[in-house]
């Protein structure tokens, strides 16, 4: 039996035929839709490397069955930059050296965008660290990550104010 799943991925509607209900969103993106930017670390919801935005909320793609999310809107690391213009969180990660090997970085960046959207951390470094605790970095770039998230929070708030003005 096969299943049809329709998803909007990085603003593009995609209909996928699944021959197996076991496919996670992570495997769908990486293995079937040629979007390998979302990383498979532990595949058990412990490391955060697979973080994507699902209907605007950060989630672990490894623990979500694609078939159960029929109709969802998905944003991955590939959908952030507009042409050569990086997303403010991407730019802040580069400015603050917020990575070393880079494997966890797509998940860190997607998680940071989710965190900033949730609006619970603000300019409090301790709340940022707590809010990012679902993303492990084995290179230990946490200091740069926290600085990058704080700067991106400020830049995105300023941009929002400019747009409102």
């Amino acid at each position, binding site marked *: 039996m096969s299943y049809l799943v329709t998803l909007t991925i990085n603003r593009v509607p995609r209909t996928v035929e699944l021959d197996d209900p076991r496919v*996670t969103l992570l495997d769908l993106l990486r293995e079937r839709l040629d979007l390998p930017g979302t990383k498979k670390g532990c*595949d058990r919801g412990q490391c955060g490397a697979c973080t994507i935005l699902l209907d605007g*909320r950060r989630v672990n793609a490894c*623990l979500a069955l694609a078939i159960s999310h029929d109709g969802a809107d998905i944003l991955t690391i590939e959908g952030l930059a507009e042409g050569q213009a990086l997303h403010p969180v991407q730019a802040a990660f580069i400015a603050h050296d917020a990575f070393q090997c880079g494997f966890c970085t797509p998940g860190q960046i997607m998680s940071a965008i989710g965190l900033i959207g*949730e609006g619970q951390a603000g300019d409090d470094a301790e709340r940022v660290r707590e809010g990012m605790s679902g*993303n492990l970095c084995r290179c230990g770039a946490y200091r740069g990550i926290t600085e990058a998230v704080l700067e991106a929070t400020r830049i995105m708030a300023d941009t929002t104010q400019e747009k409102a003005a």
Partner: protein
Amino acid sequence: MNRFEYVRPRSVAEAVAAAAIPGSAYLAAGTNLLDLMKIGVARPERLIDLNHLPDLDIIEQLPDGTVRIGAQVRNADLAHDPDFRQRFPVVAEALLSGASAQLRNMATVGGNLLQRTRCAWFQDTASACNRRAPGSGCDARGGENRMHAVLGWSEHCIATHPSDFCVPLVALDAVVEIEGPAGRREIPLADFHLLPGDTPERESVLAPGDLVVALRLPAEAAGFAAHARYAKLRERTSYAFAVVSAAAALRIADGRITEARLALGGVAAKPWRARAAEAALAGATPDAAAFRRAAEAALAEARPSGDNGFKIELARRIAIRALTLAAAGTPDRLPALPASAFASSSTPRPRGLHV
């Protein structure tokens, strides 16, 4: 992961009928179930997807002040609901001390109640485990067991229930609404999970097909909002299960405790309501001596199930800490590190905390 049939019911009645067929399992977020399926601990033949059912994701206040929380409400949505966190701050604090932000965005209220133990022997299909494979034995008894139960365990199983959320819920007299093949019924959360005894494979009162549809907190539980805290000791600062935890809720009038609630997490196969401690606190002055007496009462029956005798004193201390924090008053805003035992730069701590 084994192959399974995927079923998407359109109503609760359809879901219950489908799930009553042997080999079925409900799929809520899947944050625990998919994990267990990947390691072969759970092998359902059929998944009944609850994510497209209407009306299960609503938080509503009933006319008498009871709050009713649909089973599909996500942990983060409940913790950040402005009315809910104001009336039940200890529940919000427990929720936000659990898992990660990503998992809290996915995980559901019903799934949290029904999550399985994180006992390593339960998760390893090569090990003997009476909970996973009845009659096979318990490798945890002679193995690495420092995190295991100190209350309510049996020689057949020494696993703990890992939930933070359930700890304040059981303290506040939460009620579980169940829809099943035999109709609708409700049961206090305190009676929902089962201690292992001779049948550790039976973890709750649910029968095949039974679906948790909602949780209720009575209006009077909001009367503890001014003095209610959750405290949780972990082996790292964040994103870890409790070694031990405690939810404390007090009503204080004229310098005396008029009513107390205390429950412990990480100590047993169910969230552990400490009624003897509550009785010891009623009428007492909220001070260190009273809290120490309450903690002694809460752990009076405790005994090690292995290399975990330290958890008994640790549980006493986390109970005292939660009571001390509760007596000092619920903060307007939760601390940066919810329920953390560590000092936080942005949240001053009451005096005399280090016991």
